[in-house]
């Protein structure tokens, strides 16, 4: 027994958490997948097997299409805005500026806030009768209009702005770490070669940050698919269903519309989306390590 323990101490130490993961993560994933093949309403019922019918129904639900398209629209804009501005801020902070930690803290601060708080803050700021619009009117800009929250065509921008405000700090920190990791001599060599700074960034430094980009894209993509609390707090899917995301759809189906089967099907589709992002990433990561 002692010898067994000595030899397998690491496995023994890990086994409780492995067991928990097996049951509560993979077990429930399998359970959800099973539920998605039933016609369960308020409670899971396995005697109502319907095969893939819930998936067929899911992809014929207009609201799901809105939610699923929104995910890509919101995701694309969010990635673009957060990565480009996060990188820009990181580059600015990397210029050996004074009071660097002060600016770093400012950018990082929103990260410490939960999405619910973020959502409520931006709900106030974007509220036409409370926030920025009123402030601009008081400053004399009477024609200023900021109706993102009430306009179905632009409400997605409200989500993007709030999510960017929250996620920018992390992206900036990752890029800044990457920039700091670049050999000083590269900059000196470029200075001697007479390469202007912006060209050094475009042709040398940013390509060198490729692994950071990959990490950032994966982290942000996962947060896009998971995005739920921000939408609930900021727009609650509205106006109408115009700012719905798959996670909100799933929650609604499961707990308000008592349609567990359809909800489970949407959860499985979301899982598939996440895997489609993660598997190539893990593949590239492990191939690079090997």
């Amino acid at each position, binding site marked *: 027994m002692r010898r067994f323990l000595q030899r397998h101490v690491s496995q023994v130490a890990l086994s409780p958490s492995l067991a928990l993961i097996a049951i509560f993560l993979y077990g429930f994933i399998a359970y959800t997948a099973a539920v998605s093949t039933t016609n369960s309403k308020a409670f899971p019922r396995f005697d109502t097997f319907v095969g893939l019918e819930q998936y067929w129904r899911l992809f014929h639900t207009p609201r799901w299409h809105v939610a699923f398209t929104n995910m890509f629209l919101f995701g694309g804009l969010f990635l673009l805005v957060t990565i480009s501005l996060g990188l820009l801020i990181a580059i600015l902070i990397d210029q050996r500026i004074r009071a660097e930690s002060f600016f770093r803290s400012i950018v990082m601060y929103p990260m410490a806030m939960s999405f619910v708080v973020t959502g409520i803050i931006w709900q106030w700021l974007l509220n036409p009768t409370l926030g920025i619009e009123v402030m601009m009117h008081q400053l004399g800009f009477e024609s200023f209009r900021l109706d993102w929250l009430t306009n179905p065509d632009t409400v997605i921008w409200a989500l993007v702005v709030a999510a960017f405000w929250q996620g920018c700090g992390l992206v900036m920190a990752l890029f800044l770490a990457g920039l700091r990791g670049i*050999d000083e*001599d*590269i900059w*000196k*060599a*470029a*200075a*001697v*070669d*007479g*390469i*202007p700074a912006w*060209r050094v960034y475009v*042709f*040398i430094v940013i*390509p*060198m940050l490729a692994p950071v980009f990959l990490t950032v894209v994966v982290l942000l993509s996962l947060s896009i698919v998971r995005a739920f609390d921000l939408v609930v707090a900021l727009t609650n899917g509205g106006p109408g269903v115009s700012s719905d995301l798959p996670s909100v759809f799933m929650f609604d189906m499961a707990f308000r519309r008592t349609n567990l089967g359809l909800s489970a099907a949407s959860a499985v589709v979301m899982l598939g989306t996440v895997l489609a992002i993660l598997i190539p990433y893990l593949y590239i990561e492990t191939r690079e390590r090997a």
Partner: protein
Amino acid sequence: MIDLRISNCNKNYGSLRVLKDINLEIERGEFIVLLGPSGCGKSTLLHIVAGLDRLSAGAIEIGGRDVTDVEPKDRDIAMVFQSYALYPTMSVRSNMEFGLRMRGKPMSEIRPLVEEKARMLHIDHLLDRRPSQLSGGQRQRVAIGRALVRDPKVFLFDEPLSNLDAKLRASMRTEIKKLHQSLGTTAIYVTHDQLEAMTLATRMVVMKAGEIQQVGKPEEVYHRPVNLFVADFLGNPGMNFMKGHLRLEGGRVSADVGAATIPLDGYAFDTAPTDGQAVVVGLRPESVQPSTGGEPFALTLKPTLIEHTGSDNLVVLAMGGEEIVGKFPSDMLPTLGEPVTVGFDLSRLSVFDAQTERRI
């Protein structure tokens, strides 16, 4: 013709004086090696010449033009770094071409130039590879190639061989020397490796704590160090030092070092010696040899330790309360504890004032 002139160069970081009144004139075609322990300011001086660091006071002239406030790219210099500093996302060819392209040189001129220099450095078969696919030695060749294609007035080397293993370092050293002989371009080379300094330099500059200690040909600095620091810093194993006093008797000078009295009749004093002056007498291990009977000065000493280096035997000899090291040929192996007669080559003596530590 002076290619590079450094006048009254000072560099301070706050109250810390990194460089103190450096003056140096470098003729066209010289290979100057800046040598010194870490923190002596040699790299800072090189960076100032390159324009990567601003000087606090003083002036830099390259090719007769004052470049004190000129950007690095307009100074007509090229630099090779310790970490190679190759652009990792570009092929070897692009690395070598990039600087010239930025200068707006037409590709029709760049191509043949890059290929010629690549052949010269034996990296022409690597041109389409990425730096990450090269070995350390190959990377340093590429870095040198990138500097060569620029055809600068002055080459700057910042410890370029420090990241290589011993064997590669020796062969790269030879190549850099050959390269300099065939190109004849002025070069400044920073290193803390005295072997590199001795073999490469046409003139070397020994620095300590931001000040130049000695400038001269390698053999001159080696055999006639101006102070104790230079004497001690150069040479491996280090110079033997014997503390003592000068004695002036009937027009003859000798040094009383406790266990022996060393005659200094043949020594060329820089300053007039005084009787009783406290001195340190220095003699390199290779000037302490087993006696052949013909030396004007020999002592019988007891070996206390022998180190075999392959080519020589380093013999530690007890001399009074002190120890001195002799470099014996490998076929001369004394027995521990059995006195041997060693001859001192007094023409290679260095005598320093014990107080000022200067050569006298």
